[in-house]
């Protein structure tokens, strides 16, 4: 997928991805550690808050305890009549705002021998102090826990919270202090002094200090009963164990046990009424073995972390966006010139080398590439200019060479039959030039009425030098022939002339013959040329092909002092002489084999009844079918003269 995308996309993709990953790592690390630190602080704060609240309640309870304790002491150590007791009790309730009500409950006949039950009770009601005697009516005070338990234990005690039906008519907890009289050296319980606290009032005390925004505190009794709670319907109706049961939460049950055992701790918790996740700190109230729980809503506790994280994430995203913008800018600055270069390349590819390249703005890699590209463009331009020139001059040379070739070929006699009306002989010559300019040539002409001179030659090497040398040689041959009729002499003179200033050591192989058209006698000389073939006719249509015996004179142009011999051969009527250059026998086929003397002889035998023209055409065809696709490397030249007889 990424392979087809541009650099900008890849840069943005990878940098944003890796930047995002780094950010996430840092964020996670930060979140983890800041959370640990903050939670530690939260726990410390929670503990301080809970303990101070517990102390506050403890102080209230201790203050409540003091009042009945003092009264009990007073009752034990002084006699006190009814009016005095009433006055004391009333003022006690009136002067202690934390006390809801107070009573002195006497043992039967404990106050007055005539009075079975006596328990004067003052309590607050709608801002005034009410009085009732708990000993009257159906209220049997000595059956209540607040009376029974301290009496039996012989020590002061807090009651479990209860609804005082028939007494204070409210939810309360009572602190009861027994008081005694000395009777026959024995301590005998005379009654119980009590002080009540109103749970509604206690609730106000407990909730007087705010816990964060929505946190709160509640109290449970030593049995786990919820004593105070912001939700009033829970008070006295629910226990911590009941909540644990309802939630099927063994951990909460365990926490409840710890609470009533008087332990303290910091635990995760869900609010009893709203089920909101909270942290809870619980601490004991030593006076009455109750336990205070303070609930801190989790979201408020971690509000700082959450806010911090929000800021960090916002910063991170902003940073990534900034990074992306920066990358887009950088990528743009890289890809814009590259895109321009792509366009320029396409333009150059279709041959327009004058295209404008993007300006180099920075000395970075792109700038260097542009510079290199500019250099390449200029070099290409220069190269193409040079190439165009070279090609043009090469074309000119080639066309000139072709013209040279045409001129070279045009100086060879090409009209056949050349001497119509001459029946004594049949002559034909052909040249198949190689692609490259070569140096083969042939010539024939009458010296006088009955002497036909024929020449074949092959200049060493190829190209223009060979062509020029060939032209010079051919001209010289004709010129010298007009002075002498002796082939050896002609060759000797031509050789001398060609040696003049022949620095390049060029040479030419020449065979020259002069046929007496009356007698059939040929005078000939050879300058390094391959010997001609004689086609001899015998009796009864028999014939033979054999090389002409030649003395091997040196190639012409090699040594100034060379002397060439004239030799003689007689052609009988129907005899023929076949002269050729080595292009014939050295023609090569695909297997690298040469056409060879043998094949040439076989062809000549096959074609011996044909005319000179047909024979040469046949051999040309034979060579072509032998060589097939192999390019011709040398000129192929052949000439044949068949003697028909003197013709008189």
């Amino acid at each position, binding site marked *: 997928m990424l392979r087809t995308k541009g650099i900008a996309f890849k840069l943005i993709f990878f940098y944003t991805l890796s930047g995002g990953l780094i950010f996430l790592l840092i964020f996670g690390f930060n979140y983890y550690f800041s959370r640990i630190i903050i939670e530690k602080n939260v726990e410390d704060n929670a503990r301080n808050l809970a303990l101070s609240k517990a102390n506050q309640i403890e102080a209230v309870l201790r203050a409540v305890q003091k009042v009945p304790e003092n009264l009990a002491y007073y009752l034990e150590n002084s006699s006190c009549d009814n009016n005095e007791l009433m006055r004391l009790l009333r003022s006690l309730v009136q002067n202690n705002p934390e006390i809801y009500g107070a009573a002195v409950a006497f043992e039967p006949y404990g106050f007055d021998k005539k009075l079975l039950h006596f328990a004067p009770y003052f309590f607050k009601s709608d801002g005034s102090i009410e009085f009732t005697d708990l000993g009257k009516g159906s209220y049997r005070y000595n059956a209540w826990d607040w009376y029974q338990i301290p009496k039996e234990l012989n020590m002061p005690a807090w009651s479990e919270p209860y609804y005082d039906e028939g007494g204070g008519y409210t939810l309360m907890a009572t602190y009861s202090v027994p008081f005694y009289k000395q009777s026959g050296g024995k301590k005998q319980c005379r009654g119980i002094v009590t002080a009540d606290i109103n749970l509604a009032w206690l609730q106000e005390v407990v909730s007087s200090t705010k816990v964060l925004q929505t946190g709160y505190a509640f109290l449970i009794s030593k049995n786990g009963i919820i004593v105070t709670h912001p939700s009033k319907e829970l008070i006295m109706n629910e226990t911590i164990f009941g909540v644990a049961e309802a939630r099927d939460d063994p951990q909460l049950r365990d926490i409840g046990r710890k609470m009533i055992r008087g332990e303290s701790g910091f635990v995760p918790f869900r609010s009893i009424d709203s089920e909101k996740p909270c942290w809870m700190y619980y601490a004991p109230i030593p006076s009455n073995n109750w336990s205070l729980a303070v609930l801190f809503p989790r979201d408020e506790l971690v509000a700082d972390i959450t806010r911090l994280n929000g800021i960090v994430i916002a910063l991170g995203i902003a940073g990534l966006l900034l990074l992306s913008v920066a990358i887009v800018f950088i990528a743009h600055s890289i890809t814009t010139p590259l895109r321009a270069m792509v366009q320029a390349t396409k333009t150059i590819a279709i041959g327009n080398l004058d295209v404008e390249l993007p300006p180099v703005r920075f000395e970075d890699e792109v700038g260097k590439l542009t510079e290199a590209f500019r250099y390449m463009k200029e070099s290409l331009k220069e190269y193409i200019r040079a190439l165009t020139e070279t090609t043009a001059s090469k074309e000119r040379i080639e066309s000139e060479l072709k013209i040279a070739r045409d001129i070279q070929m045009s100086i060879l006699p090409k009209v056949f039959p050349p001497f119509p009306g001459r029946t004594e002989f049949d002559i034909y010559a052909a040249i198949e030039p190689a692609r490259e300019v070569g140096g083969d040539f042939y010539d024939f002409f009458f010296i006088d009425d009955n002497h036909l001179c024929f020449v074949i030659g*092959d*200049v*060493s*090497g*190829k190209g223009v030098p060979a062509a020029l040398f060939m032209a010079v040689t051919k001209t010289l041959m004709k010129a010298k022939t007009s002075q002498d009729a002796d082939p050896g002499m002609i060759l000797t003179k031509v050789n001398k002339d060609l040696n003049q200033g022949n620095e*390049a*050591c*060029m*040479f030419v*192989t020449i065979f020259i013959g002069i046929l007496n058209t009356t007698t059939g006698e040929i005078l000939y000389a050879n*300058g*390094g*040329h*391959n*010997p001609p073939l004689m086609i001899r006719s015998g009796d009864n249509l028999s014939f033979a092909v054999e090389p002409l015996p030649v003395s*091997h*004179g*040196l*190639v012409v142009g*090699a*040594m100034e002092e*060379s002397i060439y011999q004239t030799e003689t051969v007689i052609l009988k009527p129907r005899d023929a002489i076949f002269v050729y250059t080595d292009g014939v026998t050295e023609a090569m086929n695909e297997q690298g084999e040469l056409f060879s003397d043998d094949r040439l002889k076989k062809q000549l035998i096959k074609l011996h009844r044909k005319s000179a023209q047909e024979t040469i055409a046949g051999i040309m065809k034979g060579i072509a079918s032998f060589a097939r696709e192999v390019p011709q490397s040398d000129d192929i030249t052949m000439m044949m003269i068949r003697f028909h007889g003197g013709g008189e």
Partner: protein
Amino acid sequence: MEIQTRKEKGAIIVLVKGRMDALTAPEFENDLSGQISKGENIFLINLTGLEYISSAGLRSILSISKKLKEKRGKILFTGLHGPVEEIFTISGFDSIFKIFLSEETALNEI
């Protein structure tokens, strides 16, 4: 074409192998021209390994021999055989150069 040269009894013996044609002849000519300009002037060319020689090859031999002539040097041949010997015969080169049957006889001649 491959050229190996060694010196023996004051002569540079040149072993030529392969084909000597328009393409390779300049190499032969340059090689020997270099030796001549260093002062060597007796060469024995051993053509035992030469399979083919074209007119360009003959021309380079001629060119070398002319250079040697100016310096009064010598060029000798040995190891002629087959088509190469034939070409030497046809071109008349056998008439202007000294050709020996073996290196020993050629060296003795010097």
